[in-house]
């Protein structure tokens, strides 16, 4: 059914000129401003909540994984496997898994997706700190915690930030799919647009989410640069 609507929507869109569609889209932005604002707000929550929680889980987990093999193998393994599950499938899976529909299952699905890049970058960031630096740190009498705070974290911070950035941008896109299980957000316009075969509605969901992704990427890129220790900048 989904494929069918998609095909008819595409046919329909193809029959119109792009300029026409854009005009109808801009009209819609004005007339449905209030709806757009709500959807945008919902969408940002769909991104900020999962990414925020993911940061709190993935960074400590990534650090633990560098310390204990018992954590490393399941955590990194799951992260890698998890990343290979298609995002739509992961979101759809929430229903048979018993989470039902609505925002909560959407948050959970997106959280699982958000953890992966941050976890992986935290782990690789810390493990790729030059082993001679770690030897020097230990040889000078740092405890494990001191080494983490004074050497490993500052040096891997840019890599961890890059993970957060990747995660955020991915989630902004993936959050669109949350609408399929009633998660709301900009995806709702797209789902409705596909159902009603209205390309202006599709654009009303797609364009703002794309802009959101671009802005997030830019801002977080800047932040990444800003947190890079001065001594590491070329």
């Amino acid at each position: 059914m989904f494929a069918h609507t998609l095909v008819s929507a595409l046919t329909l869109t193809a029959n119109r000129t792009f300029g026409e569609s854009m005009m109808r889209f801009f009209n819609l932005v004005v007339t449905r401003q209030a709806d757009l604002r709500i959807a945008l707000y919902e969408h940002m929550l769909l991104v900020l909540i999962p990414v925020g929680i993911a940061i709190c889980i993935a960074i400590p987990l990534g650090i633990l994984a560098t310390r204990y093999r018992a954590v490393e193998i399941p955590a990194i393994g799951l992260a890698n496997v998890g990343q290979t599950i298609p995002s739509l499938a992961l979101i759809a899976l929430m229903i048979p898994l018993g989470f039902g529909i609505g925002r909560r299952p959407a948050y959970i699905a997106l959280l699982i997706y958000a953890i992966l890049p941050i976890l992986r970058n935290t782990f690789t960031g810390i493990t790729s700190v030059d082993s001679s630096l770690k030897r020097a740190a230990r040889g000078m009498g740092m405890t494990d915690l001191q080494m983490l705070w004074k050497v490993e974290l500052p040096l891997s911070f840019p890599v961890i930030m890059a993970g957060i950035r990747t995660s955020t941008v991915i989630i902004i896109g993936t959050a669109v799919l949350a609408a399929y299980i009633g998660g709301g957000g900009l995806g709702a316009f797209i789902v409705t647009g596909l159902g009603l075969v209205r390309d202006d509605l599709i654009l009303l969901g797609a364009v703002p989410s794309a802009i959101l992704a671009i802005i997030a990427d830019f801002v977080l890129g800047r932040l990444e640069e800003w947190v890079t220790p001065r001594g590491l900048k070329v």
Partner: protein
Amino acid sequence: MGALVPEFPHCGDSNDKHEYMERKGVSVVVFEDVRKVYDDETVAVDGLNLTVEHGEFMVFIGPSGCGKTTTLQMINRLKEPTSGRILIDGKDTKDMRNVDLRRNMGYVIQEIALFPHMTVAQNICVVPDLLGWSKKQKETRTRELLELVSLDPDIYMDRFPRELSGGQQQRIGVLRALAVDPDVLLMDEPFGGLDPLTRDQLHEELKALQDKVQKTIIFVTHDMDEALKLADRVTLMRDGKLVQVDSPEEILRNPNDEFVADFIGSERRLMSPLDVLVREVMLEDLPTLRPDASAMDALRLMQEKNTDYIAITEDETFVGMLSAHRLQELRLEEDPDSRVGDADLVTVTVDSRQTMMEAVHRLAETEEHVLAVMNRRGKLVGAISRGWLPDILAKEMWPKEAAGYEMEES
């Protein structure tokens, strides 16, 4: 050394302070039957027994895989001995907390490993930071140390490692190890990654530094030149065992076996015979007489021992050297009763730790025929005689041939 220690360097907990006060002198490191077997059953170090003396510059050398780095890392417990003990100032390192042990010990490695996100000052003050020094103490100490290696603190303090040359980076690496004025300095091929010119420069600086700060330095290298240049004593290792522990001069002259000789290689021929220490070649077991002995006895003793000098001592105290030359001046035919004490005795001395270069210079300068050699406590231990010089030089230059015509010592 006092100038290097800022006042009250520890302002952390009182324990630290107490510990600092206790360890005033320089340290002695003792290995007792130390053995290290890795998980894959390779024996890295096999029954090591060795004492590194107070303030000694000890160089560990050997081919790769001989266990020298493992030995070094067992001192600060980056690696734990499988069996045996390592004592520092009589205390078993096992009984100390890892971090306390390491903070009281400088550690310099080949990779330099300055923390790239920290400035020069922050790098130098890593250990002071761990010990909780105040900002002011840290700054004073940083300035002091940078000046020690002639780097202008105002220029370099706030630079980042990547803004420095390799040589400058390792200077900071050494300063970082000296920050809390530790007694023991561990150096693991610290200059291995530098170009030869910079390395030479750092050797000179390290020697000058050692003269100033007098640390017990344990230095690992595979470069024989470096070992001979820096060491008070060299420990040669192979397959986890000691092959020879000796002064550089002794290793050069008397390699224990073929392996040592091979390892020394061509360097040994490059060493000038005049670089040898006086104590290595001086004539020992001198014929001795009291000042009131008769000149005739002295003459007989010289003929009997086939020597041209006699040491004149009174109650163990050195009075002077009587050379054959001076004995003639007594005109024995005219005055057979004269005593050796009447002769114009030679009182020129040379320190046993000086080189032959200095001894020869001394001989030429004073126009004497013999020099008395004194040890550091001012006791007579031997002599250098003009007559023996050619033999000494020959033996140094062609040690193998010289073995054939061993000097006729008294």
